[in-house]
């Protein structure tokens, strides 16, 4: 999850504040926790970068700090979930407004979160609470072509790969278990779990290559309004 971009001046003010805080912490708490950058790159089975992969890093050494729950929004626009995938910490809530003129009827029968939002337009329902870790697949009971995913994680570090198929984060030195997931991935997620140590250098890198080809992407253009 990337926070919304702040204006530059505010950003640099925050950075300055951050530096100051870090300095004070260093003075107060003794030696700092040493950090290094972890870069995970995911490739398709034919070696091309794969954007949009959900990456999570769990610490194997110390009791993990749990990520802070967030309030997320998944809209419905032109009979599609927007965005079609959210990654949220366990305990977060998601609001599902419907911005279409047609009604939707959202459901999930995924084991980690079963729920349904009866036929609606606008935002009539309170946010849905996601407290169990797992992938929740969403559908609309009226429009079968609609599919969305909420990935609920308890990893302290998580995100999605960018257009170059890469995700990076600063991590404290230590051992980590890396997991990845993508809606079109045919490989079992367990086969792509890796453990690695961060801290031998300033930068740890890991490239994961899928062994199986992706399932084809959903057809983009749907001009047929009432499918039979």
């Amino acid at each position, binding site marked *: 999850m990337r926070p919304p971009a702040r204006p530059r001046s505010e950003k640099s003010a925050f950075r300055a504040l951050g530096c100051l805080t870090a300095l004070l912490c260093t003075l107060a708490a003794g030696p700092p926790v040493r950090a290094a950058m972890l870069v995970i790159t995911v490739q398709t089975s034919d070696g091309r970068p794969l954007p949009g992969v959900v990456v999570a890093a769990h610490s194997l050494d110390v009791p993990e700090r749990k990520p802070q729950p967030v309030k997320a929004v998944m809209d419905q626009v032109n009979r599609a979930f927007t965005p079609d995938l959210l990654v949220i910490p366990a305990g977060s809530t998601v609001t599902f407004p419907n911005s279409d003129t047609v009604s939707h009827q959202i459901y999930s029968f*995924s084991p980690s979160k079963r729920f349904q939002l009866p036929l609606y337009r606008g935002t009539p329902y309170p946010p849905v609470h996601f407290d169990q870790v797992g992938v929740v*697949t969403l*559908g609309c009971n009226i429009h079968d072509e609609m599919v969305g995913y909420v990935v609920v994680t308890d990893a302290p570090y998580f995100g999605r790969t960018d257009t170059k198929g890469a995700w990076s984060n600063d991590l404290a030195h230590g051992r980590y278990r890396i997991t990845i997931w993508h809606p079109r991935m045919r490989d079992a997620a367990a086969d792509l779990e890796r453990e690695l140590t961060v801290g031998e250098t300033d930068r740890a890198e890991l490239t994961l290559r899928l062994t199986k080809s992706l399932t084809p*992407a959903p057809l*983009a253009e749907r*001009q047929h309004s*009432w499918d039979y």
Partner: protein
Amino acid sequence: MLPRASLLQPLASLALASLVLATYARADGWELDLDGRLVSSDANPSYTQGGVSGVRFDQDQSGLRLGRARLALTESLGELWSVHLDASAWGDHDRIPVGLTEAYLQFRPYPFSSGYRLRVKAGAFYPPVSLENRAAGWESPYSLSYSAIDSWLAIEVRTIGVEATLDWLGRRQGHDFDLGATGGVFGWNEGAGGFIAGDGFTLTDRQTPYGGRVGLPGDPVLLNFEPFRQLDGRAGVYGGLELRWLDRVVVRALRYDNRADPTAFDTASFAIAWETSFDSFGVRAESADGWTGIVQGLKGNTAIAPGGFYMDWPFKAGYALVAKQSGKHTLSLRYDRFAVDTNMPGLGGAEIGHAWTAAYVFKPDQRWRFTLEWLRVTSNSYNRNDAFGLPALAAETQLQLAVRYALGSATY
């Protein structure tokens, strides 16, 4: 040119309906379409005019025509029920100017946690055969005229009854495919088969409305034909399977039998019960770069036995369609083959033929659609010669330019 009364009456009715709708526009979904055509045809008198032709518009109907005026409504009734109404006017000589082509109640519970889902429809609707007529109003997004198979359904086949579908939603559980099984029980369609035995196959987009009639009174072949009738106490049944691989491939199979008593006969109207059964199988595949391919085949039999004299007409039809969509443009080409055989002495009602359909669809937005379609049907029909004295073998060409404008919340 257009016969005035036949155009104005349906348009006035639809305009009135849309006015009522605009006033009480509370329906979940509504759509009003107006489809005008410029037609050039060299065909023999059309089946809508009392003749036998392979296309909808004959040479006397060249010029400006009403393709279809349509008003559709979808309204939710509470949480899990909804009602769907589809009314159309075709601007020809049917005895009702506006009629319902489909009208049904749908029950749509949420999927069970096991991944199964039930759908139930009750009312009047199409059995799940077509792979090309997937757009609103049971229209084809690829062309104006439907394939021979779907044209036959449009003319005289409809489920008037109950249909239940149980789907296994594999794609919601990490698999690549979904499975569905459908069963239907129906009645009031014992006219189905009469058109095949009389006129054979035709490529059209005119859907006979409930209460409507096919052809004209005094039609020497169809004899004031009404497909939606029940003449005995027997219900028809069908059962089908569907496999969907992602959103790319659909495979459909259906076994259909109206179980009519071929000896049933209505002495007042001279209507006969046609015992009609068929098997249908088809595949539709789509690619990410806009290609669509459809192959479908249907094989069946229709029979009557008034007074114990058994007459039957085995029939078969199939087509292959290729379409390429690129943004707002769609080009399609379809080849149809069809044949009707018979045990009748002299082969009354036998027909064999094929057709080519080429269409270009330009859909700049959800409201406008422009279509140019060229259709050529070559057929050898016993009845064309026997009943009308025309050469049995005919090659008919119909060229249409269609402009359709759609209004409503379903078009957004």
